[in-house]
């Protein structure tokens, strides 16, 4: 077990250096994660979002804001959201298994769910974008140097618009876990990146969906940057046999709640 001072020193030593050295061990990172988790148990206030300042995720060290956010009332353009429509997104873009002439390799899955605002109302006709690694844990991104194979039949990119009930739907391949350089022998749990728009620009968010029971959860400083277990759980999809289809694919369900509410929006012309 590492002394806390060693953990602090490790953070100190890392701070001015590149975050891609991959020099620390998983034990060092895990000890830091546990330490920050312990601090959270002792803290009075509940958190539901990740910490920007989360040193076990080394790249945050030079990139997290250090000054308090300025509380502002949203104005005009911030209270509404960009619009997207059928001209922007082809219905076929929701199926990541049909983007090439051949079938991609891996476990075929459907991921579906609903996007709700803070009042529980469906966010309809909004853009949902996903991107992910392939079944072997490889992104087609040129900077991904992982030795796993690229799948010529899989880009890992999908888009759709939410229905009137806020629901989205994708068919894809279950992504594999992949290595990264946060520390030595660092592996990310399998995940799908989600990009979402709400009713208001200030509802804009990007997140990651995980799969239930992933053995890498405890080791991953990105997932653990959300210190509240209940909050972390909100990123984990549920296996749903109702979504699974006969001889076709397994199914996962994942609902999202965006900040902001429809009831706070008033036309700016009102009263003028």
């Amino acid at each position, binding site marked *: 077990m590492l002394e806390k001072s060693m953990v602090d020193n490790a953070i100190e030593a890392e701070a001015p250096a590149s975050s891609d050295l991959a020099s620390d061990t998983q034990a060092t990172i895990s000890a830091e994660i546990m330490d920050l988790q312990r601090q959270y148990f002792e803290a009075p206030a509940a958190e539901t979002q990740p910490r920007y300042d989360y040193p076990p995720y080394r790249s945050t060290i030079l990139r997290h804001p250090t000054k308090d956010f300025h509380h502002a009332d949203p104005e005009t353009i911030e209270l509404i959201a960009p619009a997207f429509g059928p001209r922007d997104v082809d219905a076929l873009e929701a199926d990541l298994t049909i983007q090439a002439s051949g079938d991609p390799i891996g476990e075929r899955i459907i991921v579906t769910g609903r996007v709700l605002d803070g009042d529980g109302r469906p966010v309809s006709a909004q853009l949902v974008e996903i991107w992910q690694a392939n079944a072997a844990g490889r992104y087609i991104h040129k900077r991904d140097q992982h030795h796993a194979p690229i799948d010529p039949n899989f880009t890992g990119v999908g888009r759709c618009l939410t229905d009137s009930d806020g629901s989205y739907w994708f068919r894809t391949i279950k992504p594999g876990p992949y290595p990264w350089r946060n520390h030595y022998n660092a592996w990310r749990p399998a995940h799908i990146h989600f990009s979402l728009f709400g009713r208001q620009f200030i509802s804009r968010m990007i997140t990651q969906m995980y799969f239930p029971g992933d053995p890498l959860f405890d080791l991953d400083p990105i997932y653990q*940057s959300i210190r509240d277990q209940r909050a972390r759980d909100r990123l984990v999809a549920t296996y749903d046999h109702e979504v699974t289809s006969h001889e076709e694919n397994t199914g996962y369900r994942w609902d999202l709640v965006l900040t902001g509410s429809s009831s706070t929006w008033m036309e700016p012309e009102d009263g003028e």
Partner: protein
Amino acid sequence: MSGEPLVATPGQTIGPFFGFALPYEGSEQLVPPGHLKATRLTGLVLDGHGDPVPDAMIEIWQPSADGRIEPRPGSLRRDGYTFTGWGRAATDNTGRYSFTTVRPGPTSEGKLAFFAMAVFARGLTNRLFTRAYLSASPDAIAADPLLGSLPEDRRRTLIVTQDGNELRFDVRLQGEEETVFLAFPGDAP
């Protein structure tokens, strides 16, 4: 409405590998470069050492040049005529982002005009919001609800500088000149 608002889903970092997925052809061109009123909004995204962040993504959302807010589809497949008000740009190897757009107009008499901006990057565990204001008279700046509530040295981090037809706005994630980032009512801790 009744009852507590639902708890928002946590954000997560955009990670390093979004370049093949989120930016698309024309994503940074709210108007074509040949547009009569085309201007460039550009800047650097910098970390706490002042080093460029080459894997950040900036989104802007703005009114038209005459201050109208009319959300229109078509951002993902731009036709060169429809002003959608929204754009997306990844930073390049030097940490620079660039948009081709028009200067946003004030949405009503006396209001300051600004680009609403969202910032994403590897190493940022969640998005950041800020505003890039067009410069204005000292009186107008002091009267603005947001700018007027900030000390002088923080205020200037939110105001674009102009160089010819180019608007410049750097985003400093950390440090002395750190950009003012915004929290809105309803944001969860």
